[in-house]
C-alpha cells in the first residue's frame, strides 16, 4: 500500500540529479584522490594540498549553507546564531583530536597543553570519553542538537518570530563566544584547539587523511542535499513552507508549528555540527571566534547570495562568497571589503532570489514561449510571508 521509503527517496530527486550526484561523487571519491596522491606534482592535473583543503573547507561551508537554507529558505526562520552549532560540532570533535595528540604536546603530558598550563591535574568531567572516536561523533551531533532543541523549544513555544528570533539567536551565540573565551571554561580559551596530530591514529597532515576528509565532506554534502530534497518534497516540507507563509492558518488546520519548527531547527543544527566536525581537522583550528555574530551573519549571506529556498542556491552561495573572499583577500587585500560588501548589496537589491534566481530568469527568458513553471514560489510573496 505504501511506497517503500527507499523508492520515495530515490524519486524525490530526478534522474538527472542522481546523475549529477554520481559524477560529483566520482570526482570526490576517485578523481580528487588520484589527482592529489597519484598525479605527480607539476602535472597540470595535480591538485595541491592547498586546493584540497580549501575546497574541503568550502564543502563544509556548503553543508552549513544547506542547513541554513532549510530553516531560513523553507521555514522562514532566520537564525543569526548558526555559527554556534557549527562551532559546537567543531569543539566536540576537536576534543577528540586534542586527546589524540597524546603525549606529543609541548609539555609531553597526558592532558592537553592548555590544561597542563592551567595546572589542572585531571580532565574535567565534560571531557570524559573524549578519547573515543564514536563518542566524539555522537557528541558532534548531540551537542548542537540538544542546545538547539532546548533553545528552540522555548523560543518557538513562546512564538518568538522574525527579527526577535534572529536577535536572540545572535545573543545566544555571542554569550557562548564569551563563555568559550574564558580559560576556565576548559576549551582552551581564545586559542581554542590547534596543533592536531592524528585522527584515528592516522597522521592528520598526510595526503591520504586529507583526501579521506575531503571525500567525507563531499559525502556529507551529498547526503544533506538528498535529505533536504526529500524533506522539502514531502508533506513535511509543504507544511513547513505553509508555516513560513501563514503560520496562523497552519495552526487553525491542526498542525502544531512548534513541532515542525523544532524538528527542522534541530536537524539543521545537527547538520551544522557535522559540518563543523569535518571542518576542524581540515583547517586545523577551532576557536571561539567561529561563534562571533559576524560569522553567523556570513552564513545567512551565503544563502541569500545563492538564492533562498533552493538547496542548490545555498551551495552555490557558500561557494561563491567563500571563493570571492579567498580570491579578493589576495588580489586586492586592502579593498576586498568593498567588493564583498558590494556583492551583498547588489544581490539583495537586484537578485532577490540570488544567483539561482538570476539563472532561472535568464533561462525563462530564453524559453519565453513556455509558461512560467507553476511550482516556482513567487519570491515577493515568500519573503512577505517569511517576515510577516
Amino acid at each position, binding site marked *: 500500500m505504501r511506497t517503500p521509503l527507499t523508492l520515495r527517496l530515490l524519486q524525490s530527486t530526478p534522474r*538527472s540529479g542522481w*546523475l549529477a550526484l554520481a559524477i560529483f561523487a566520482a570526482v570526490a571519491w576517485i578523481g580528487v584522490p588520484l589527482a592529489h596522491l597519484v598525479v605527480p606534482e607539476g602535472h597540470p592535473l595535480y591538485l595541491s594540498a*592547498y586546493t584540497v583543503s580549501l575546497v574541503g573547507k568550502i564543502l563544509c561551508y556548503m553543508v552549513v549553507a544547506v542547513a541554513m537554507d532549510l530553516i531560513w529558505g523553507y521555514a522562514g526562520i532566520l537564525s543569526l546564531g548558526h555559527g554556534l552549532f557549527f562551532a559546537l560540532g567543531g569543539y566536540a570533535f576537536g576534543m577528540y583530536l586534542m586527546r589524540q595528540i597524546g603525549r606529543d604536546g609541548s609539555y609531553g603530558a597526558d592532558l592537553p597543553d592548555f590544561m597542563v598550563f592551567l*595546572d589542572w591535574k585531571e580532565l574535567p568531567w565534560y571531557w570524559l570519553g573524549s578519547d573515543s572516536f564514536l563518542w566524539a561523533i555522537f557528541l558532534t551531533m548531540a551537542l548542537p542538537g540538544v542546545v538547539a532543541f532546548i533553545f528552540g523549544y522555548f523560543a518557538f513555544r513562546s512564538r518568538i518570530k522574525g527579527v526577535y528570533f534572529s536577535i536572540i539567536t545572535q545573543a545566544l551565540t555571542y554569550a557562548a563566544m564569551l563563555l568559550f573565551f574564558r580559560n576556565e571554561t576548559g576549551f582552551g580559551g581564545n586559542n581554542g584547539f590547534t596543533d592536531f596530530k592524528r585522527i584515528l591514529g592516522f597522521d592528520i597532515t598526510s595526503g591520504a587523511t586529507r583526501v579521506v576528509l575531503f571525500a567525507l565532506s563531499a559525502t556529507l554534502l551529498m547526503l544533506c542535499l538528498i535529505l533536504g530534497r526529500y524533506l522539502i518534497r514531502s508533506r513535511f516540507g509543504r507544511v513547513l513552507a505553509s508555516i513560513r507563509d501563514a503560520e496562523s492558518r497552519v495552526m487553525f488546520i491542526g498542525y502544531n508549528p512548534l513541532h515542525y519548527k523544532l524538528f527542522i531547527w534541530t536537524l539543521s543544527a545537527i547538520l551544522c555540527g557535522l559540518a563543523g566536525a569535518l571542518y576542524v581537522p581540515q583547517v*586545523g583550528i577551532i*576557536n571561539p571566534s567561529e561563534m562571533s555574530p559576524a560569522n553567523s551573519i556570513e552564513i545567512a549571506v551565503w544563502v541569500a547570495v545563492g538564492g533562498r529556498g533552493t538547496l542548490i542556491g545555498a*551551495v552555490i552561495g557558500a*561557494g561563491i562568497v567563500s571563493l570571492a573572499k579567498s580570491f579578493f*583577500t589576495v588580489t586586492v587585500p586592502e579593498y576586498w571589503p568593498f567588493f564583498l560588501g558590494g556583492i551583498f548589496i547588489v544581490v539583495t537589491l537586484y537578485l532577490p532570489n540570488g544567483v539561482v534566481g538570476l539563472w532561472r530568469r535568464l533561462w525563462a527568458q530564453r524559453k519565453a514561449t513556455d509558461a512560467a513553471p507553476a511550482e516556482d514560489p513567487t519570491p515577493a510573496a515568500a519573503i512577505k510571508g517569511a517576515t510577516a
Partner: protein
Amino acid sequence: MHSRRHFIKALVLSASIAAIGAPLGAHAADTIKVGILHSLSGTMAISETALKNTALLAIEEINANGGVLGKQLEPVVVDPASDWPLFSEKARQLISQDKVAVVFGCWTSVSRKSVNPVFKELNGLLFYPVQYEGEELEKNVFYTGAAPNQQAIPAVEYLLSEEGGAAKRFVLLGTDYVYPRTTNKILRAFLHAKGVKNEDIYEEYTPFGHSDYQTIIANIKKFAAAGKKTAVVSTINGDSNVPFYKELGNAGLKATDVPVVAFSVGEEELRGVDTKPLIGHLAAWNYFESLKNPTNDAFIAKYKDWAKKNGVPNADSVVTNDPMEATYVGINLWKQAVEKAGTTDTDKVIAALSGQTFKAPSGFTLTLDKTNHHLHKPVFIGEVRADGQFDVVWKTKAPIRAQPWSPYIAGNESKQGL
C-alpha cells in the same frame, strides 16, 4: 527539471573551485618571494596594518641596496582578515602556491597557533614580531618580539623597586584570553617569589571589546585604599585601552598615586587617546620611538618618508613602535642569514640564523639566540608624555636572553632550546 540544472551547476562549480588553486602557483624565478601575513581588515587591522607597512619598507630598502643574493625581493601581501582559520589557509597558500621563501606575519597568539602546524608541515619559515606569552618553541618560527621575561617581569621589578614607587599591592588587569592569563600567571608566581601575598593581588578580566571600565576602576580604587602602595599591571588588549585610559583619567587615578604599567600599549595605541591626563603611566617595551640614537633616527625618518610616499592616511602623524621594530629587525636578520647560507632553503637559513646579530633601532645590537629562536632584547620602561610618546625612565644595561619557557610555571624547568 530544476534539479538537473542544479546539479550540473554544482559540478561546474566544484570544477572551477578545483581549478582556482592551480594558476596562482606560477611565478618568476628572478625574484625571491616574501609573504606578508598581516590582517588588513577586521579587528586586528588597527595594529597589523603598520607592520605590513614596515615589512614593505624594509623590503624596499633591501631591494634598493641590491636585494638578496643578487635577486630582488618580491612581497606577496595577503589579508587574513582577522579570521584565524583564514590565517592557516593563507599561510598554506603563501608557502605552497606562491612559494615564498619566508613569511612575516601574525599578531595574536591564536593566529600564530593557527599557522604553526602549516609551517611545520610544509617546512616554511615564519617571523613573528609581537610580544607574547611564551610557552612555545617551534622549529619553523622565529620570535622577534619579547617573551614574558623580556617585558613583564622587568616591568614588575621596576614597580617593586624604590625608584618605581615600591609598590606592595598589585592589580593584574587584562582582557580575557591567553596572553593576559598566561602573563598574569607568571607574574603571580613571580610576585609570590618577591614576598607579595595573594591578598595583595587582585586579578580581573574583561571580555574582548569591553568598553565600560567604571566598575573596574572603582574596584581598583577600593583595592588601593588599603593603605599600601598599589600598582596596576594591564594586559588589556586593543580597542579596550581607549575607554580604560579615558575612564582612568576622568576618575582621577593619577600615575603618582596608582601607576598603570601596560604591555600592549605603545605609540600606535596612544594615537587614539588624549594622553594629557595619563602622564606618568607606564609601558614596558623593547623599543620606544623616543629613543635617541642614530639608528633609530634613521629608522623613523625612513618610515615617515615611506608613509608619505605611499599615501598612508595621516602620514604626518605616523609613529613607530615595538612590533614594527621587531618586524624590521626580523627581515634584516633573515636577509643576513640567507646571504650567509647562500640559499633560501629553509633548513639552511634556520641554521644560518642562529647567532645572527643586527644593530637595531633600539640602539642595541641584538643577537638571535643560538638555540631558542628568540632575540636577546633590551627592556625599556617608559612613562607616557603629553605628546603620546614615552620617556624612558629605566632600561636594562644589556640585552636579556629570552625564556620562552617561564621558570615560574611548573614543569618548565627542563625545557631550554629546541
